[in-house]
């Protein structure tokens, strides 16, 4: 079987203070069953044998559930395939001779650390500000100890599918984190356990989102299209309504 030959234009940046720029690499004879990250591994092995610095990129589970991989591939976070992370994108979706541009997530709140690796600790600080419930830990509670209607449980679970990768920010023309924050607010505010801190949570998380330097939401809907977990902007509406009602009441 003949392999896939590609030209890669990759963003290289030595450190957060370096200006950075694109470098072009040729990779030849790739197996089309490889994942995109495996293709990057091949490139890096090639660079190492040439005594060149390999391309730094984030990755961890490589099975689409951790949210670490983060590449903008030809202008789309996680590449062209719907509902997939970069690690689950396979080279069969590309054609021989393609030129692929690979960039890091671009946002003020996601500064580049090196090459394609960005610092997403702004997301962690948003979670720390209120994305939790305060409960005493103990032995695991019985299943269905608190009855929750099926449709509500499903809706909360769909929000909880967010892996916090930041593709929503990366694709948003305003670098808004609204989809991420709304998913993290909703996964708790929909459930009984989330009610005691519901109001405080949305206020604190929205305030933290603003202070991290993310942009505002203009409802283009790009985030829900690019989200690897296909999280709906309906959660943004819910968050806005919660936030507005809370603050107008008080």
């Amino acid at each position, binding site marked *: 079987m003949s392999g896939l030959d590609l030209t890669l234009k990759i963003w290289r940046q030595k450190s957060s203070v370096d200006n950075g720029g694109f470098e072009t690499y040729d990779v030849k004879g790739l197996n089309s069953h490889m994942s995109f990250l495996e293709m990057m591994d091949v490139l890096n092995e090639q660079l190492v044998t040439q005594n060149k610095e390999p391309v730094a990129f984030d990755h961890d589970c490589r099975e689409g559930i951790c949210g670490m991989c983060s590449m903008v591939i030809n*202008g789309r976070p996680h590449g062209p395939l719907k509902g997939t992370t970069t690690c689950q994108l396979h080279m069969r979706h590309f054609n021989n001779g393609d030129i692929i541009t690979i960039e890091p997530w671009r*946002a003020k709140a996601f500064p580049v650390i090196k090459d394609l690796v960005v610092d997403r600790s702004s997301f962690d600080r948003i979670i720390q500000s209120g994305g939790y419930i305060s409960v005493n830990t103990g032995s695991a509670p019985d299943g269905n100890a608190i009855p929750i209607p099926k449709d509500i449980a499903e809706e909360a679970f769909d929000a909880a599918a967010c892996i916090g990768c930041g593709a929503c920010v990366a694709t948003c023309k305003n670098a808004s984190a609204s989809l991420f924050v709304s998913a993290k607010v909703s996964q708790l505010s929909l459930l009984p356990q989330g009610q005691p801190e519901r109001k405080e949570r949305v206020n604190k998380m929205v305030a933290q989102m603003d202070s991290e330097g993310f*942009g505002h939401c203009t409802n*283009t*809907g790009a985030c829900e299209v690019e989200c690897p977990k296909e999280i709906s902007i309906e959660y943004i509406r819910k968050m*806005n309504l919660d*936030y*507005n009602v809370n603050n107008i009441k008080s």
Partner: protein
Amino acid sequence: MNNYLTSNIFRKVLASLSGLFLVTFLIGHLLGNLQLFIPGVEGQTQFNKYAFFMTTNPVVKLLSIITYSAIFLHIFITLYLVIQSKRARPVQYAVSNGKDNSSWSSRNMSVLGTVLLFFLIVHLKSFWYEMHFGEMPYQYLSDGTKIKDLHLITTSAFQNPFYTFFYVFCMVALSLHLKHGVESAIQTVGLKIPSYEKFFKYGAMLVAFSIPAVFASIPIYLYVSSL
């Protein structure tokens, strides 16, 4: 209130509510403009009397102050947010593929808004400024009184094909601005609940198409009837 008043969501709510208010203004303005379809001296008299009423009635004056405030609020809030979103992404992408995930109008609201601001300035100069400060022709009514002839100013303005084209072009921009704006405003305030999603979606499309289309039909009618 924590920092609600300085939050981006609140700023967006202000942009949304001012925008939705301006839609109601557009409907009012459009209903007034429909009088331009009335032919002959009868139409001229009615339109000029209407213009006189609109520039002198105290309730209308109060409404106009609210409208101007909404326009300024809408411009300044959205300008602030646009600058802020530019700052939120200091380094741009070399390749971006917006067309794969969002509509053109949703990505270009600021461009469309700028076209509409330019239109507004030209429009106010052509009619509002002339009516208030310009040297206006007069229409002499049958009871002997005279009244500023805005009807003549309007019909002669739209004898110019370029001015007519400019007006129609700006109505296309208005249509695209409303297409995203109305639906987005309802989402921002949090009312686009899923069970009414189709109602809001098609309602917004109806508003976005019908208002600019009827607005544009008037100058086209005036231009064609001047030929």
